[in-house]
């Protein structure tokens, strides 16, 4: 079992620290879930380099060979989720009022209605979830955006992902029902992390 120190760093021999303070945003006061992503980049190094510019990012990065990097402290939010989809729609539990509002179709307003709810009534968001990035490209590399499909997650990456998710769930008391692939919680390319397993 790993330890999280007072700086939000995970202490374990399997985890390398490559923390970019530039992608750390507001304080994260509660951790309710885990969101699994793919980077659309060829190497861990290219993603780590991009984090130096700030903006979006995630807390962990899993390289092609399964090496796990911690890229942000767990004390801070990172921007990795985007606008939330309506969870009540997925669970077929929306009230008539909410269903009527959803028919107007405005993803920004949909997110605003979701973010004021509490997990599990909504999906975990930037405010309360850990992001795990898996290195992997959307291919063909030179093709237009509409023709791109994410490459499969490697066996070594899935082994590391399974271990990391299990440890985080155990230490932070996160139910397995709150671990999601990115396209499940936001409108994203549905092939992102489609082959990720935990």
């Amino acid at each position, binding site marked *: 079992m790993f330890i999280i120190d007072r700086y939000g760093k995970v202490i374990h021999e399997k985890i390398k620290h490559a923390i970019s303070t530039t992608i750390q*945003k507001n304080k994260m006061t509660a951790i309710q879930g885990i969101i699994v*992503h793919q980077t*659309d980049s060829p190497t861990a190094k290219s993603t780590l380099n*991009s984090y130096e*510019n700030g*903006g*979006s*990012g995630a807390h962990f990065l899993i390289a092609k060979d399964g090496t796990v990097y911690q890229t942000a402290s767990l004390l801070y*939010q*990172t*921007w*990795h*989720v*985007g*606008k939330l989809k309506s969870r009540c729609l997925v669970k077929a539990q929306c009230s008539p*009022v909410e269903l*009527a*509002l959803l*028919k107007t*179709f*405005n*993803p*920004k*307003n949909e*997110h*605003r*209605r979701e*973010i*004021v709810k509490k997990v599990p009534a909504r999906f975990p*968001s*930037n*405010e309360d979830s850990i992001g795990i990035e898996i290195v992997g490209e959307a291919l063909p590399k*030179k093709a*237009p*955006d*509409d*023709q*791109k*499909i*994410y490459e499969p997650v490697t066996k070594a990456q899935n082994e590391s992902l399974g271990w990391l998710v299990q440890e985080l769930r155990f230490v932070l008391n996160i139910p397995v029902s709150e671990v999601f692939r990115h*396209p499940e919680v*936001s*409108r*994203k*390319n*549905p*092939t992102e992390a489609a082959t990720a397993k935990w």
Partner: protein
Amino acid sequence: MRYLFLLLTAFVVACSAVNHENDGTEPELYSLGLGGINKITITEVGVKSIAGKDINISCEKFTLTQNDIEEYFNMAKRISKNDYRHMLDWSPCYVKGNIILDNGDTGEWGIHQYRGGTVTFGADETIYMYCPECTAKKFDAPEYLSN
């Protein structure tokens, strides 16, 4: 009465969301910086992405006119690839075409229903775009369910 209740609910939600405006769901915007544009051509409308083939959304009605595209390239902003992936909504529905710049560079562009787009020049240079201020009505149209 029902509409009044809906309006009141929407107002309450909008007010309660004020504190969440800066929650990392809108990208940082930069000048598009393409320089002068010589010609923009639409090659295909209502395209459904390969990745979205299993999604129950029909893209045939997602069309943009020549004026819409010219407005897009006039008003769109450049955003980072990381923000494009994490913050922007992804849609399976695209309009595609070509662009020729005044300096002779040629590129291929694609713009999807949620106001995001890419333009690619040569083998490696892809520019990620977002146009929150574009006025084309099809950007705000409902998703068209296939069934």
